[in-house]
């Protein structure tokens, strides 16, 4: 039995949440649907750990679906690169489901909770399918599954605030245009190479030199994925979508949705189009590098002036995505590894921050803004402690996970681009201290509005919060797990050239 699971694990990790989402819809009892979602995400997380072991032994697992050899049929490819977002998505998915037990009923009306959990599982399954697939068109199908499910989840926030509907609408239209641009890119590449399998595409692209359709196809694919990964100029949908989504949903989306698209961007830039080297070099240095520098500063400055906490964290997500794309755009082995490191750490940091804010919002039963936060630090010590640790990790202070990713990023940028880039990175993370201090000061120093609320923090909520904070600290002290797997990934990606 076990070896069936092991040998079929690349497909089981996608099928398990997909099939359970079909079953969860039919269950009328709300508690039972949450329980099944919890068990499913836990099994998915176990399979992803199993896959991690598999990848360590033989570095590439290829699973031909339908028993047809890869160029004919669809192929699932799990290697050092795709295992990192895979573990992030299933891990954070499990933690967010544990956290969502009390939060979901307070935000979504009773009789659509089982549908919400079904959409929740579909979003996780779509993201995992996005990461594991090795076929360019199958990637579009799973991109659609995850984005339709995320749009519906964001729109469920309309019970609290009607702006969730407009945010979901913008998310849908911009996402659909991005996905269609990606399809045009795949179509152009298919027209000149004749194949859809990514590995096959790389081989056949190698012997096509300065073909205009290749450049245009590359451009369309990258822009389509940049829309989905909310990279700077195309990130307009992200702040409102994460701000007005139900709080449990914004935890899941903030920590996982953009990571899958960033992985796809790395896959396109460094594995599919690696042969056309000058095209990649040009895009990286003249398009993605400046954009990510602007993203770092624009996201942080917008966050400083923001009053609504969830939108503030969404803007800071845009800045952190800027760090990841900056790491990719430097293009050396060390920098791509630091990109993957920050991808993992940012999921932990943003997941922790959103969880802390959500638990405060749950007790206040109000929209969390700077003003409504004042004085909560004293009444909710555990949540405040976790919030402080996660914000220190965001700013990148020592002994936290954020410090590790900033350290490797600065080391990589010094070794290749020189001091000016390292200075910019340090300056922008110093800027991010401003809005973090603004929140902590409001939490701790300001007098609280109504001393009346005696808040008894229920263990169900703060267990996963403590767990994610502990992970933040643990990976700050001993980051060997993340660093090694990121270096394996960047070696695999850039193994040939640099």
């Amino acid at each position, binding site marked *: 039995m076990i070896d069936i699971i092991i040998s079929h694990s690349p497909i089981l990790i996608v099928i398990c949440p997909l099939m359970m989402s079909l079953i969860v819809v039919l269950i009328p009892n709300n508690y039972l649907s949450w329980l099944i979602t919890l068990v499913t995400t836990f099994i998915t997380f176990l399979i992803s750990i199993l896959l991690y072991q598999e990848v360590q032994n033989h570095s590439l697992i290829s699973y031909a679906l*339908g028993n047809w050899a890869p160029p004919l049929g669809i192929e699932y490819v799990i290697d050092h690169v795709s295992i990192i977002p895979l573990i992030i998505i299933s891990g954070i998915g499990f933690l967010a489901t544990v956290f969502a037990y009390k939060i979901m009923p307070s935000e979504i009306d009773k009789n659509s909770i089982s549908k919400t959990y079904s959409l929740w599982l579909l979003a996780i399954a779509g993201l995992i399918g996005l990461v594991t697939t090795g076929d360019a068109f199958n990637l579009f199908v799973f991109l659609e599954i995850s984005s339709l499910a995320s749009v519906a989840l964001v729109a469920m926030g309309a019970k609290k605030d009607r702006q969730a509907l407009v945010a979901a609408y913008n998310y849908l239209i911009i996402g659909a245009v991005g996905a269609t641009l990606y399809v045009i890119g795949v179509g152009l590449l298919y027209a000149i190479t004749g194949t859809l399998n990514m590995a096959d595409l790389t081989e056949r692209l190698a012997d096509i030199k300065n073909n205009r359709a290749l450049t245009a196809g590359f451009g369309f694919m990258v822009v389509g994925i940049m829309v989905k990964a909310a990279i700077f100029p195309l990130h307009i949908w992200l702040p409102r979508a994460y701000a007005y989504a139900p709080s449990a949903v914004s935890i899941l989306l903030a920590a996982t949705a953009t990571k899958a698209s960033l992985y796809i961007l790395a896959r396109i830039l460094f594995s599919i189009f690696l042969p056309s080297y000058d095209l990649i070099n040009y895009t990286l240095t003249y398009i993605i590098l400046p954009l990510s520098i602007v993203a770092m500063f624009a996201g942080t400055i917008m966050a400083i002036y923001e009053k609504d906490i969830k939108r503030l964290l969404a803007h800071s997500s845009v800045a952190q995505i800027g760090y990841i794309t900056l790491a990719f755009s430097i293009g050396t082995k060390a920098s791509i590894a630091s990109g993957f490191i920050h991808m993992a750490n940012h999921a932990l940091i943003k997941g922790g921050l959103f969880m802390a804010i959500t638990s405060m919002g749950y007790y206040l039963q109000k929209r969390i803004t700077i003003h409504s936060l004042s004085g909560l630090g004293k009444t909710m010590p555990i949540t405040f402690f976790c919030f402080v640790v996660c914000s220190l990790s965001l700013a990148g202070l020592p002994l936290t996970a954020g410090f590790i990713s900033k350290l490797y990023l600065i080391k990589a940028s010094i070794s290749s681009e020189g001091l000016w880039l390292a200075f910019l990175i340090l300056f922008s993370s110093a800027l991010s201290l401003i809005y973090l201090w603004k929140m902590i000061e409001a939490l701790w120093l300001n007098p609280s509005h109504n001393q009346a609320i005696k808040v008894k923090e229920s263990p169900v909520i703060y267990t996963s919060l403590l767990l994610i904070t502990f992970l933040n600290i643990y990976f700050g002290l001993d980051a060997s797990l993340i660093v090694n797997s990121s270096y394996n990934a960047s070696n695999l990606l850039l193994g040939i050239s640099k």
Partner: protein
Amino acid sequence: MYKNPILRICTKILFAPIILFGLYVQFHGDFGPGGGFQAGVIVASAFILYSIVFGLKEGKKLLPEKINLFLLALGALIYAGVGITSIILGETFLSYNSLGTNAQSGQHIGILLVEFGVGLTVSNVMISLFNSFAGYELDKG
């Protein structure tokens, strides 16, 4: 609900042939144009025509929401079930060679089952889409 008898009688007469044509398209997918998606839409159009002419309540009586939701999930489950059985029979996901006595009959069975699952899901999704849009005004909070 149209009182006009001509419409009501024509719908009653037309209902069965549309479903029959839908099933023809469903199982004729191997030899000519057709398959799960088109058949599901045709079958759904029969139910939608019925609930347009006889009113949403009658349409809900014809196909209650509970059963509609169940069939919705059942179609996709049939598709996933075919995949899981091919895993249990030792091949990779969604490979039909081992389903039948020999490879070719296995492919035939697999394709027929899979197309039936797609037809079931697509038809029930289209019916539930129409019912949610048409019934939105009634139960708006």
